[in-house]
């Protein structure tokens, strides 16, 4: 008889070892899948996990791309983790990401071709405000009418997608684009472009913001009264109330912060790597970030690592697709497996596994 016994403290050794164990298990299970598809499993696994980092051909290009891909994931996930810790469920970061991008790009497109130093900072502010405002809708409905924030934030994603399509086809359409949908390319508008801070590193303002957010939230959670209140509200809402935590204020702060960070991620993407507002601009970062937040156990450093790991599987997955002809569906299933194992083996850091019968209590 196998049973689990809760550890008083999560095991430090297992906390480090479980992700490695999960990756190893995924390699076995995923390798089996690739073998069934008629691909060499060893080559496939190496292409996904090794080649983006160390392949002599690609690595110098892929390594910086890891940051480009992980940046928005980390930035959004950091914001979400605060609310998740407090039991406030923002499932709609995808919508806030879109609205941030629209607000930020809207400022640039409205002022085009103004060439001023303050344009980019203004866009950053607008991007954060756009995401914040979109998150305020579920926040206000929750505090005023007790409307469930899961539903409102989720459905507003679809509304945001319609706004995005409308903008790409109408108001923000490139007047010199021959009638095609999509805005001007902000990469070609130097005052508005979010370019690499150091050439060839992938490091743009969005990645910098993600790192700053990681540090800021770490400090907030460990040193600040608000961080304490957030943790308390999540662990025991009753205790939080006795401690004088205002639940409504917490809802507004957590949703607002996560919305603003998601909006920033959208703005940095549209002004940088993405370049333009178009119909399919959003690509699921807001949803993937939820996974990243939990994979990182809602801890800032964990989120940083989880974001980089997700980015690695995306980029490695791309390489595996076109170098080995593995269908994108198999890569998606592979990512799913990796997550299953990461989440499943986590049990080892929180519980002892005991063999034999339970002692009489």
């Amino acid at each position, binding site marked *: 008889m196998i049973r*689990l016994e*809760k550890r008083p403290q999560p095991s430090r050794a297992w906390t480090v070892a479980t992700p490695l164990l999960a990756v190893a298990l995924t390699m076995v299970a995923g390798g089996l899948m690739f073998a069934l598809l008629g691909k060499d499993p060893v080559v496939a696994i190496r292409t996904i996990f090794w080649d983006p980092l160390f392949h002599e051909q690609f690595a110098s290009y892929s390594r910086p791309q890891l940051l480009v891909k992980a940046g928005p994931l980390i930035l959004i996930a950091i914001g979400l983790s605060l609310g*998740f810790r407090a039991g406030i469920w923002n499932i709609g970061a995808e919508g806030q990401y879109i609205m941030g991008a629209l607000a930020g790009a809207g400022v640039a497109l409205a002022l085009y071709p103004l060439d001023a130093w303050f344009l980019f900072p203004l866009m950053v502010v607008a991007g954060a405000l756009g995401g914040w405002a979109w998150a305020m809708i579920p926040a206000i*409905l929750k505090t*005023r*009418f*007790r*409307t*469930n924030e*899961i*539903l*409102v934030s*989720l*459905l*507003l994603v*679809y*509304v945001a997608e*319609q*706004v995005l*399509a*409308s903008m790409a086809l109408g108001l923000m359409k490139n007047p010199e684009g021959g009638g095609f949908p999509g805005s001007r390319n902000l990469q070609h508008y130097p005052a508005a472009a979010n370019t690499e801070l150091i050439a060839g590193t992938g490091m743009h303002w969005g990645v910098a913001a993600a790192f700053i957010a990681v540090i800021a939230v770490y400090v907030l959670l460990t040193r600040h009264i608000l961080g304490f209140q957030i943790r308390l509200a999540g662990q025991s809402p009753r205790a939080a109330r006795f401690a004088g935590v205002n639940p409504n204020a917490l809802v507004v702060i957590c949703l607002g912060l996560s919305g603003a960070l998601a909006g920033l991620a959208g703005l940095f993407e549209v002004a940088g790597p993405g370049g333009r507002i178009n119909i399919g601009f959003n690509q699921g970062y807001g*949803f993937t970030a*939820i*996974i990243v*937040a*939990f*994979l990182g156990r809602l801890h800032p450093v964990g989120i940083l690592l989880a974001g980089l790991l997700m980015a690695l599987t995306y980029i490695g997955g791309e390489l595996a697709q076109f170098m080995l002809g593995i*269908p*994108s*569906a*198999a*890569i*998606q*299933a*592979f*990512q*799913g*497996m990796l*997550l*299953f194992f990461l*989440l*499943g*083996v*986590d*049990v080892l850091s*929180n*519980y002892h596994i005991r063999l034999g019968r339970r002692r009489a*209590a």
Partner: protein
Amino acid sequence: MDFGAINPTVLAASLMVASTPILLAAIGELVVEKSGVLNLGVEGMMITGAIVGFAIAVETGSPALGFLTAMAGGAALSLIFGVLTQVLMSNQVATGLALTLFGLGFSALIGQGYVGVKPPALAKPDLGLLADIPVLGRVLFSHDLIVYLSLALVVAVWAFLRFTRAGLILRAVGENHDAAHALGYKVVRIRLAAIAFGGACAGLGGAYLSLMRVPQWTEGMTAGAGWIALAIVVFASWRAGRVLLGAYLFGGVAVLQLNLQAAGVAVPVELLSASPYLVTIIVLVIISADRGRAALNAPASLGRVFHASS
């Protein structure tokens, strides 16, 4: 503009068909959430049901067998989630999202040979005279079996939760798993059963899309229906009757906006297109503004990890 072109009777009949996939998935998820488990993997289970049901129906020529296998497939996939969250006590939100990711990939993988194939049709029951009743006949008695099954399921789930001892136990597990455990109920087993039921319903809903409503297999064809089903459960504040209301409201607005477009109404298309989501939010705000009883209805243990410590 030509409002006369919109026939309310026909519209009512169409919205029932359009709402059935999300209704099926939502009623299953309701049972899962009532047991205290939040499974965000509905989309992944739906799409898996869609391809499994489609493939079996095509291979055997029997849509009925397809639907049954779709339920089995959805349930099997949901048990990955079940084992991870209940036995290995992983985080439910993240595991559910991972299930969606996995389901989308897995379904596309097995569906590679089924693109451009026409599935066999499920015969409609001939209700004879009943179907000829004006208005009611078209609305109530002109559908396929799955539509009736979905309605029967809503009633069955409602009665199960309200009147049966098993339903009471399920709710108790969802409200306070520690207390239920102390009373000697097998929390994990009950939840696994609920999760499998939810998976079967989602699988059936997915197969209804691929075998009846579209009918066709294409990758990612659920196109977010699973997410809507999740929203509908919240909308319904965890009550079976209101799941029906929510699903039909959403499906109804979705069908109505297409009809308004066809009739040439002068409202911006993007606004019409966003209307199902907006109307759902607005209606929920109106309902929940009423003293906020909705929040009290959420199962108290929803999404929390259960560990039998004693």
